[in-house]
């Protein structure tokens, strides 16, 4: 048994972690559906709270979608390490001989596939309901596609730092939301500026740069934070 364990490559361990998290999410459908429904509900509150007029809605539509996606991502964050921390499998993950970076990355990717991707996929529908100008649908979709993984990766640091705490919800929000501001700015500016004739490529390049930086750096910070939280 020891020999087979030693022969597991990092790639296999990465895929096994990814598959395990996706399977758990599939079996606990509530955890999967709730962030998505939360996104829809928050997006619905804005027209009710501000104005149902299409002209005013079209101005704020991109921001509403981004803020709703950010809040949904934050709400879903707690599932990322919580259950694993409580049942002890997080400790097993830390004890594994493979680099923790890849294990954390696998968990983050699984988490984004479950909580971020559905939000991105449904965003054109909500954008239509919020009267976003039709030319901006593609921009919004692409920036959300590149931006929501960054939200998951950044949020993962905050969750890893607070996973052992009893009352962690508000602290998580306070340390995560300010860090997500650059993504929010890039996303909403892209929609606004392309409506005024700016080129989309520059914004996509900035979003992609943020994504690459977050992919390389954020899991390292999350891994360090997990080692601190799980003693």
């Amino acid at each position, binding site marked *: 048994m020891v020999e087979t364990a030693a022969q597991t490559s990092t790639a296999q361990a990465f895929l096994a972690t990814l598959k395990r998290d996706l399977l758990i999410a599939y079996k606990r459908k509530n955890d999967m559906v709730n962030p998505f429904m939360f996104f829809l509900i928050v997006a619905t509150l804005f027209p009710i709270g501000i104005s149902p007029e299409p002209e005013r809605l079209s101005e704020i539509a991109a921001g509403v979608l981004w803020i709703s996606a950010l809040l949904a991502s934050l709400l879903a964050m707690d599932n990322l390490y919580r259950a694993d921390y409580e049942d002890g499998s997080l400790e097993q993950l830390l004890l594994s001989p493979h680099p923790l970076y890849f294990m954390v990355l696998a968990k983050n990717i699984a988490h984004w596939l479950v909580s971020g991707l559905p939000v991105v996929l449904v965003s054109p529908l909500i954008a239509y309901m919020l009267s976003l100008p039709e030319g901006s649908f593609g921009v919004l979709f692409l920036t959300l596609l590149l931006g929501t993984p960054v939200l998951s990766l950044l949020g993962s640091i905050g969750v890893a730092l607070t996973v052992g705490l009893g009352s962690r919800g508000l602290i998580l929000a306070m340390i995560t939301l*300010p860090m997500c501001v650059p993504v929010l700015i890039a996303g909403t500016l892209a929609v606004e500026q392309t409506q005024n004739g700016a080129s989309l490529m520059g914004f996509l390049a900035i979003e992609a740069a943020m994504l690459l930086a977050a992919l390389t*750096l954020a899991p390292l910070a999350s891994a360090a934070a997990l080692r601190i939280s799980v003693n």
Partner: protein
Amino acid sequence: MWTWFHRLGSPKWFYEISGRWLPWLTAAMLLFLAVGVVWALLFVPQDYQQGLTNRIMYVHVPVASISLAFFPMMAVAGTVSLVWKMKLADMVVKVAAPLGAWFTALALASGSIWGIDTWGTWWVWDGRLTSLLLQFFLLIGMISLRSALEDGDAAAKACALFSIVGSINVVVIKYSVDWWNTLHQPATNFTADPSQPNGPEIWVPLLLMVIAVYLFFIISVILSTRNEILYRERRAQWVEELVSQS
């Protein structure tokens, strides 16, 4: 050459040495502050556009300068605390967060008093203001993270890591909000040429004020760190002797 660094590992040594520095630092601060305040408020010529209001600069610029500079400083202390497990570095991280939050709040407050006169509004969603506000939120998050983690060692490591992540993030936030919306004037270039409008009679008192406020910040950090040392070492013999003497 590393002895000074190893000595920093001993809170007792720092307590003794900082006790000897404090009178000198305080005297220097009072001197710079007295000369700076009197010069800035009474003798600096009025700005031809802003009039007397411009004198707020002598408070706003030093305070804002610290609120930008202390986050990297805290990250350096956090790195030292993570790498060498130095208790003193963690104490600095701990006391710098609330002090930095105060200075950030003061920079925002003095800026908005300046703003009501020159921009005609207390608050605008301008790049620099927004990034300082977000930095303030991050600091409040950091303080509540520390108070929620009761275990001293885990709190030390978590806050050290957060100070590093946060200082990188503060830079990204700063550039992204500048890109988003900017009204704030850029930093002015001061010259040594007395015939220029921003000559020495403007910036020398500003420099004195900056030095005075930096000294005040350093003294505050040292005083809070000394309190923290006494609290954490309260069961050590030297602290008990110190308390029984006084």
